[in-house]
């Protein structure tokens, strides 16, 4: 599966063998080198159940699913990845795909506090400059990730933004990218049932009407997404 994963795609995991929890859980692919890796925090019913699975156990996984980030066009001078919390996952695999790109790559990362800051050294290995903001100021800049937007070069021709994180954060990214006419792709998430575009349960509102995050997305042009 790892070889067929594109940046931004996700896998749909049956976290237990029982009907509890009932739905599979979608996870953005975090790494896809030799094997597929996902990043999660055990906070809800599904992730807590997944955390209880033992190494070596088999999991029922559908994927890779959904569309992909479009890689930056030729002439891009600055790639900006903006991640919030666990939403950094698809940006990691994107940075793997961009590891050999010579342009400037930066990661702007926001987390609640120092304890929630994910280990970002692999972004650095991929040639990204990393800037962090925490809500409580316990690490990096004090405040929201928007405090780091001053690192972005606002040239619509040569800057490409990729973002994934909580909705308020992505709404701020949308506002900034629109004000500066920058291209920005956002990876969106909703509760999913089928993840195959059948049930239309995971739709989000866009300028083109409702679109499924599983099949039409998860990656959307941020201009189209109505947060």
């Amino acid at each position, binding site marked *: 599966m790892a070889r067929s994963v594109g940046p931004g795609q996700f896998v749909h995991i*049956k976290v237990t063998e029982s009907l509890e929890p009932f739905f599979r859980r979608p996870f953005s692919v975090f790494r896809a080198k030799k094997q597929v890796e996902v990043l999660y925090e055990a906070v809800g019913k599904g992730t807590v159940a997944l955390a209880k699975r033992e190494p070596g156990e088999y999991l029922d996984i559908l994927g890779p699913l959904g569309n992909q980030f479009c890689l930056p066009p030729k002439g891009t001078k600055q790639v900006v990845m903006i991640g919030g919390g666990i939403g950094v996952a698809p940006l990691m695999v994107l940075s793997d795909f961009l590891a050999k790109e010579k342009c400037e790559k930066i990661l702007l990362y926001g987390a609640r506090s120092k304890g929630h800051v994910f280990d970002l050294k692999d972004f650095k290995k991929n040639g990204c400059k990393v800037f962090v903001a925490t809500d409580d100021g316990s690490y990096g800049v004090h405040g929201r990730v928007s405090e780091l937007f001053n690192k972005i070069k606002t040239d619509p021709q040569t800057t490409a933004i990729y973002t994934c994180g909580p909705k308020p954060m992505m709404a701020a990214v949308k506002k900034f990218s629109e004000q500066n006419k920058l291209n920005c792709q956002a990876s969106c998430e909703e509760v999913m049932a089928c993840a195959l575009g*059948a049930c*239309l*349960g*995971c739709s989000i509102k866009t300028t083109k009407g409702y679109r499924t995050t599983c*099949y039409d997305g998860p990656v959307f042009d941020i201009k189209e997404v109505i947060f």
Partner: protein
Amino acid sequence: MNLTVQIGNLKLANPVTVASGTFGHAEKYFDLEEVKKLGAIIPKTVTLYPREGNPPPRIIETASGMLNAIGIENPGADIFIKEKLPAFRKIGVPLIISILGHSDEEFVKLAEKFSAAGGVAAFELNLSCPNLQQKTLVAQDAAATARVVAAVKRISKVPVIAKLSPNVTDISEIALHAEGAGADAVSLVNTFTAMAVDVKKRKSVLGNFSGGLSGPAIKPIALYMVYQTAKRIKIPVIGIGGIMTPKDALEFLIAGATMVAVGTANYLNPKAPLEILEGIQEYMTANKIKDIKEIIGSLKEK
């Protein structure tokens, strides 16, 4: 082994189909050779005009089931016929088109459009969608059900199936009226009207406020409704309601269903319908049953 079943004059290779709205994008994700093994395919309900659908959240999981309030999002008949029907036809499995009109005339127009388009094996009338914010549903009114069935029957050359809502006092009574109006089969049950509350916000979770409960949680109730209905009418019953496994499907067949439609199970396991078909065949082999008709309605009541 004979697995064929019949709905009106339509012969189907086997009794397993997919419930409307639960099967999509076959061309992208499925091995078509596998999909071809299904007895029939019922795509998501089509309305005369495009429908945007309900605001999110549209789904939530529950204990052994889920609520949905999608709101019959669909591109409307014209675009469906132009853009989606060809791909469904290509699969080569009999297509049962689920239609929903907001009036008798709309049901008739839909049937006419699809009849003209061709390649439709039967119609399923969605009389029971609980998400359209109307006070009553056609399927909650025996006379209205009969009226719509009769209207479509007058112009349809292919069999007409009435899909019934479980949100009634006696579903077999509605089925009886559908049969009287000429329906070739009834399918039951659609979802049970239900809700979930967000205790932090003290608001209903679903964007549409209420939704429909489906999945294994409803199976025993659906099974009893199928049993009651099959006993009362002569036309075939398509059993629907939380069918996840071959055993679930066999329960419905034994209770009187001529066919089974797999719905919510598709969301957990897209191969569920095919695994259920294989399981039925294994059961027949193990029990030396040569014809599926030996199973249908074979429940011993004493």
